[in-house]
């Protein structure tokens, strides 16, 4: 056994280096479907941001009424509003793409026949509407 083989068990003498085409970092800008794919993947940043933002809002809420009002006042700044419009659009893109993929993950059968994809998507959109109504009610029902 040669010296490098003993030092590294994964070392293979004279292992061929196969040809690999170099990919540019921005390979996904070349085609609309690739850009959509990367945009969809990047929506996870908006998801994480919104989760942490909820905690920040609860923090301001816990500090008292004056801090809560100051927190809301700061969010009225056009810079924040513009940034949040962007985040919101990413969240919508996540929802639309996620619910659109639902029929691929969920195959429902009625008797022997498979439920059509459109019905599965419609069911998920109904769930989205119900969840949104629930969130709205949580914030607004008897809090005026």
């Amino acid at each position, binding site marked *: 056994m040669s010296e490098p083989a003993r030092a590294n068990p994964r070392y293979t003498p004279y292992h061929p280096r196969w040809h690999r085409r170099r*990919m540019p*970092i921005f390979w*996904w800008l070349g085609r609309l479907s690739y850009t959509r794919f*990367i945009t969809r*993947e*990047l929506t*996870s*940043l908006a*998801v*994480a941001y*919104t*989760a*942490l*933002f*909820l*905690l920040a*809002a*609860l*923090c301001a*809420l*816990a500090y008292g*009424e004056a801090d*809560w*009002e100051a927190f*809301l*006042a700061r*969010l*009225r700044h056009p810079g*924040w*509003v513009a940034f*949040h*419009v962007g*985040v*919101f659009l990413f*969240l*919508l893109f*996540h*929802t639309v793409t*996620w*619910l659109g993929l639902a029929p691929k*993950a969920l195959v429902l059968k009625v008797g022997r026949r498979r439920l059509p994809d459109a019905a599965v998507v419609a069911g998920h959109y109904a*769930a*989205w509407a119900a*969840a*949104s109504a629930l*969130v*709205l009610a*949580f*914030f*607004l029902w*008897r*809090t*005026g």
Partner: protein
Amino acid sequence: MIRLPREPFFWALFSSGGMLAALVLPALAAILFFALPLGWLSADHGALLERFAHPLARLVVFGLVALCLFHWAHRFRYTLYDGLQLYHLSALIAVLCYGGATLATLGAAWFLVAFP
């Protein structure tokens, strides 16, 4: 692409977090980003505090935050692999993503136990 034996576990977190985020976050963001700050809707501070202080509400917030963070961790990890071609940093990226999500989840738990 590297496949770890823990993959199914993280995929389950990714998938449930993705579903929860898809259903809940647009409405939540619309309220927190726009409706309350811009005065489209109004909610009394004391009533809102009381509502979020309920143990069940805190549990739901914790579940939502934790699953959203692990959804991010799993998806962002593969975004870095595929988008930026950082295959040689795969282990480091996985540790940073899942580790970051774990730390933030622990922080959220600590905060929500102490809340308000």
